């Protein structure tokens, strides 16, 4: 189909999406899709579940678009919904905590055994601890944005990151010694 391209601002897209325009909402979250998937994968450690979680989160976000404050950044708001969706998925699949998976992208992994151990270590963290580690060390998100995503202060975000890392420290040190 030949195209006529219309440049729309974020405000236009939000307005259209609020009126039920799914394509407008899709455009709105297009820049966030990759990051959202990586957050979901970091929390769920399952490729298919991560993609499904992002899809469900997208519909949830669309329904709740009225809650997005004017001028607020879309990314932390959307990632918070993705994280909540992942929490729901994990609650409904208690067995996944113990499930051993072969990681996608393992061909790129230099230290496969170490990667699996770290994944298992991450799975032993609580949802909130894992989320904060993923946001900080996987998404490389600044503390200020983590704070907005989690609805906490920047100081609290720093504290939570430190605590989560303390829980991961033994496994990392063991790997470091072995390596």
């Amino acid at each position: 189909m030949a195209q006529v391209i219309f440049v729309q601002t974020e405000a236009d897209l939000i307005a259209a999406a609020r009126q039920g325009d799914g394509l407008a909402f899709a455009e709105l979250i297009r820049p966030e899709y990759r990051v959202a998937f990586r957050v979901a994968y970091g929390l769920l450690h399952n490729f298919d579940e991560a993609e499904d979680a992002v899809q469900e989160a997208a519909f949830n976000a669309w329904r709740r678009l009225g809650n997005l404050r004017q001028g607020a950044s879309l990314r932390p708001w959307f990632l918070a919904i993705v994280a909540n969706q992942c929490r729901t998925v994990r609650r409904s699949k208690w067995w996944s905590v113990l499930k051993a998976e072969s990681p996608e992208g393992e061909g790129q992994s230099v230290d496969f055994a170490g990667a699996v151990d770290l994944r298992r270590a991450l799975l032993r963290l609580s949802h909130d601890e894992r989320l904060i580690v993923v946001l900080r060390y996987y998404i490389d998100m600044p503390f200020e944005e983590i704070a907005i995503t989690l609805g906490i202060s920047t100081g609290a975000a720093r504290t939570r990151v430190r605590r989560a890392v303390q829980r991961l420290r033994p496994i990392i040190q063991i790997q470091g010694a072995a390596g």
Partner: protein
Amino acid sequence: MEERTLFDRIHQALDVEPGPGAYEQLRIALAKRPVKPQRWPAFPMRWSKMGLRLAAVATVLVLAIAAGAAYLAAHGVADRATPADSEHAIAAYKLLLYNDYIEIPAAPIEGACFGNQFAACEADVSLRIPVANQIQNDLIRFQPPARFAIAVAQMRRHNALQIARLNAVLVASRALDAAAMSRSVAAVVSGRPWMDAMFNSILSSQQVTVATYIRSVSNEKRNLDQCVQCQDLAGQSRISCTGSQVASCQALLESTAVQILSFQTAVVLIAAPSSLAVQDNWLQLDLAVADTALLTMGEALSTGDQAGFNAGRVSLQQAIAAVNVDVPDILNG
């Protein structure tokens, strides 16, 4: 612990990217569901989910490669071979398409072709055109299994358009014409989701039971009926697409195209059982007519050709009317 160490180790352990076309599948899913959410259908292999699963497809294809490669080696895929819907023939054809699909550059064309990046754009498009030509050659040269025949015919049509659009980008970049390059790139970008969706549907296609197929067709028909823009476009009221109304016509076209594509891919992905093959063939054919009509209307809209748009619309109306007959035939067995 060094922050950098933890960063590196977590990336090493978790580094993945979403599957190719995953965002586009989400986009289509968002477009086809109304703002008031509905529950997902009980059928767990919904196409929007399955279409996303290229990783799973790759796994299945790895298993099929041995059989497919052996088949190709032993028999070849003879030019204009007699179509056969044996499992081996289907696996071999999927393998052929898969090998074509993975050759398409993953990076989006708009990453190289923007602004005054003429040289980078020319280099990028020069890589894409041979791949698109190779796909076209394979789509023409190898006769598909019967259940993919209509879908593949439409793929040829869409891919031919993509080739023309890519060539337009090449010409514009060589002419250092930023505006023409931007328009042509936008057209290429707009054509990619259709090809992605159909590739994914064929690669993931599975023949299902009568009940499952009927449920899928019923869902798609309901979605088409609930698509207000589709009904407007297929209705009898006069639609003018001149001046400021071009945008609303474009919106009608895009919404309808999403819905028709959803229906087309659904009947390929969730393939009809043998007992409904004839009815499925009619439905696919009428959906293809609707799809072609939308292409015609899109081209006419881009050139301000109201008469061409109206002609395409008549064809669309007839195709939708035919679909309205096809579906009860299927639902009533």
